[in-house]
């Protein structure tokens, strides 16, 4: 299923897309969170998304879950900027 682009807006609202089982964990395919206008690290974003749910944070930082920024799968430990398109993708099922 297609979805609209995900991004940091100028107001510092983050939209992040989820796929696979993560869709169920978050109850939707997309989540909006407030963040500093200067952006956040990916680790900070995980905390913003999961709040104090330690299990959910663990799922997001699991190395098997990949971080996608602007349609590129990137290694963790980076800073996310305004207008970046962000997604968390669990291991794929294949076709």
């Amino acid at each position, binding site marked *: *299923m*297609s*979805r609209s682009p995900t991004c940091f807006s100028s107001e510092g609202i983050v939209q992040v897309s989820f*796929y*696979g*089982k993560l*869709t*169920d964990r978050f109850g939707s395919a997309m989540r909006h969170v407030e963040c500093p206008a200067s952006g956040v690290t990916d680790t900070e974003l995980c905390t913003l998304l999961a709040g104090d749910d330690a299990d959910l944070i663990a799922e997001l930082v699991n190395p098997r879950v990949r971080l*996608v920024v602007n*349609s590129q*799968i990137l290694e963790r430990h980076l800073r996310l900027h305004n207008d970046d398109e962000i*997604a968390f*993708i*669990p*291991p*794929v*099922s*294949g*076709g």
Partner: protein
Amino acid sequence: MIRVQGEPFDPADELAGLTQRASEAGAIVSFTGVVRPANAMVKALELQHHAVLTLRSVEEIADAGIQRFAPEAIVVIHRHGLLAPGDPIVFVAAAAHHRRVAFLTVDYIMDRLKTEAVFWKREHHADGLRWIEARQADHEDCRRWMMPVLAAESEASVRGVSTHGEPAK
């Protein structure tokens, strides 16, 4: 031709199209995967996809097949969205001068699609939804293309393909 689409497709039409385009080919092999109808509990199969990564993954797998076996032409079509049992879900076809290249190309692309294509699948059961992962057998099928013996056999077959048994067309 590579497509990832939500709309249904007709495998017969796709095969006819390839046959028309690959008029110089001496062999055309096609594979159609359908949503398995055997389990009456599964009402539908949903394929979630990423608007960019999914097509890219399918294109990379198809390109690898072309690079490795050098067929004359290929077609790869994959559905996403909600599919019913019996619906065609994937179609892979290859046209080549000789059958070995066509068989190997389709086999290779399908094995890699089954494990590496960027889809997340879940079954719609009467009592709820269930995410599914690639089967162990699918991973083993894919790994065999990395094994030296099989790789050597495959490449040798392609390089040294004989012309007997297949009359010129």
